[in-house]
């Protein structure tokens, strides 16, 4: 409110209520920051004992031996778990990035009207399937299928978890990539079409380069999703500690290790602390990925605002 309205003008009940509400909603907004900080504080609090007493950087990142339950010589090497997560996520991205981008281009640039709306709704529904159901699908449908098709003894492996994870991550990546394409101002397309470019030329030479940042962000968020996925990977990857050499090797992921072992550890033990340390590592990596994605999205928006049409009036007064 501008200064011309003297403070004495109206300090009635409505004014005070307005102030109170303003403080309340600010508290609501701040709660998001409080929670994200709280997550870091509380997992660090539980993991700190292990980090300071037992944690060995070289062992954690260099050794594939994760034997926390060994009675005489427990070791906490997370390399095999990191390799497990990386291989599954990598395969998932290999499968889903091209298909998600293709689907986003089809939905955003080619499809029109009812087809477009239907596809968007379907993609949104795909994103809703719970991860434990995906894990169950890996276990009960993909597993026999892989054994049969590839003639391997075990169907719970990198391939299984990778495909499941790819199908899980694809809807999110498609949605975000489509948003990025939609954010490219129509004036870009119109200008290219006026020069005689065909639809695919417009898409490939104009829209995709202009939306590049958003597409990178979509991929990053897909990677983050794969990295943090727990139940599906736990159930479909075979859950055995391995440095994978082929897609048919069973692996174990960082997230799955926490989910499988935390229930059996005593609070305060080294093993318990080690699992929280894995959690801290997961938190930091996903935070970095999300932060990077946000930077890319922001960069993309700024670019269009500068070069494209003027933005619509903001809803914020």
């Amino acid at each position, binding site marked *: 409110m501008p200064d011309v309205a003297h403070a004495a003008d109206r300090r009635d009940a409505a004014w005070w209520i307005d102030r109170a509400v303003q403080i309340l909603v600010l508290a*609501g907004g701040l709660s*998001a920051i409080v929670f994200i900080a709280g997550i870091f504080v509380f997992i660090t609090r*539980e993991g700190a004992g292990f980090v300071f007493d037992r944690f060995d950087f070289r062992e954690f990142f260099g050794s594939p031996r994760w034997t926390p339950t060994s009675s005489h010589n427990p070791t906490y090497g997370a390399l095999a778990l990191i390799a497990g997560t990386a291989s599954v996520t990598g395969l998932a991205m290999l499968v889903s990035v091209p298909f998600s981008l293709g689907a986003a281009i089809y939905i955003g640039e080619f499809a029109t009207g009812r087809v477009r709306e239907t596809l968007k709704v379907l993609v949104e529904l795909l994103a809703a399937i719970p991860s434990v159901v995906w894990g169950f699908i890996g276990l009960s449908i993909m597993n026999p299928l892989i054994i049969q098709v590839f003639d391997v003894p075990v169907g719970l492996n990198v391939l299984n978890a990778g495909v499941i994870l790819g199908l899980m991550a694809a809807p999110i990546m498609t949605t975000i990539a489509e948003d990025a394409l939609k954010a490219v101002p129509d004036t870009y397309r119109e200008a290219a079409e006026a020069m005689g470019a065909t639809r*695919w030329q417009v898409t490939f030479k104009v829209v995709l380069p202009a939306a590049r940042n958003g597409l990178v962000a979509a991929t990053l968020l897909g990677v983050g999703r794969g990295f943090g996925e727990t139940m599906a990977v736990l159930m479909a990857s075979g859950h055995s500690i391995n440095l994978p050499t082929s897609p048919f090797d069973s692996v174990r992921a960082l997230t799955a290790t926490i989910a499988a072992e935390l229930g059996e550890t005593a609070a305060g033990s080294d093993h318990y602390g080690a699992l929280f340390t894995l959690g801290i590592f997961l938190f930091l990596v996903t935070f970095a990925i999300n932060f990077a994605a946000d930077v890319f999205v922001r960069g993309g928006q700024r670019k269009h605002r500068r070069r494209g049409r003027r933005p619509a009036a903001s809803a914020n007064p």
Partner: protein
Amino acid sequence: MFEATAQNRRNLKVEGLLRLLFLWMTCMLILPVALILGVLIVRGGPAISWEFLFTQPMNNMTAGGILPALVGTVWLVVVALIASVPVGVAAALYLSEYAPDNRLTRAINLAIINLAGVPSIVHALFGLGAFVIFFRFGTSILAASLTLAVMTLPVVIVATRESLQTVPLAFREACWNMGATRWQTIRKIVLPNSISGILTGVILEVSRTSGETAPIMFTGAAFFLPFLPQGVLDQTMAMSLHLFVISTQVPDVPEHMPFGVALVLISMVLAMNGISIAFRVYLRGRKKW
């Protein structure tokens, strides 16, 4: 005068081919899931009956029904909603109606993105460290629901914020010009015009919450409890964890049972999402401005 040249024809051909390629890629995302749903229905359908839904599990979960898991999921979802909807709506109101474009707002937005992006198992660790141990709620519905509430907060915030922002600025300006305070404007003009959009977000949150497994594993959901929870400090079974347990942890479960549980769970989630989408489409059609 404007005859198609060889170049034109080639371009059109490429365009047609690419169109088909992208359509195929889109279908490749959707068709496998449709097939999987089909398999779930065919193999899980026979398991589902009134008896399956409304009796206790028996014989070490190899027979009987899923009643405690269904009831437990309802408990978890309701308590999580009570905790997160007010906070989420307040946060969305701040971001949409009050927040200036400054560092604090950017930090809040980044925090929301991260709350949505942090792995569910890390949320589980947080719930265990904060609610179970630090606040001494023990492994209980309360601890599990609060963990779920923190995790799904971004769903409510984002849906509510979008819904608030569809109310035209002119509506607010008209109200301010009458001398109304910001809050009066929000209560009389902004909220009534966006309440249905907020409801869509809440339904989406219900769907998300009922499917989550990892966050409740160590905070309040039990593998097997042959009775129904009596209050928020009890432990409970839950649909999602029940599916995990009977498909991986318990030997000799007849094959149709996990398929039945998976089918019930996925039907619940997809129905919620379907309702939310239908609601949104209906609202968009009805909008007068």
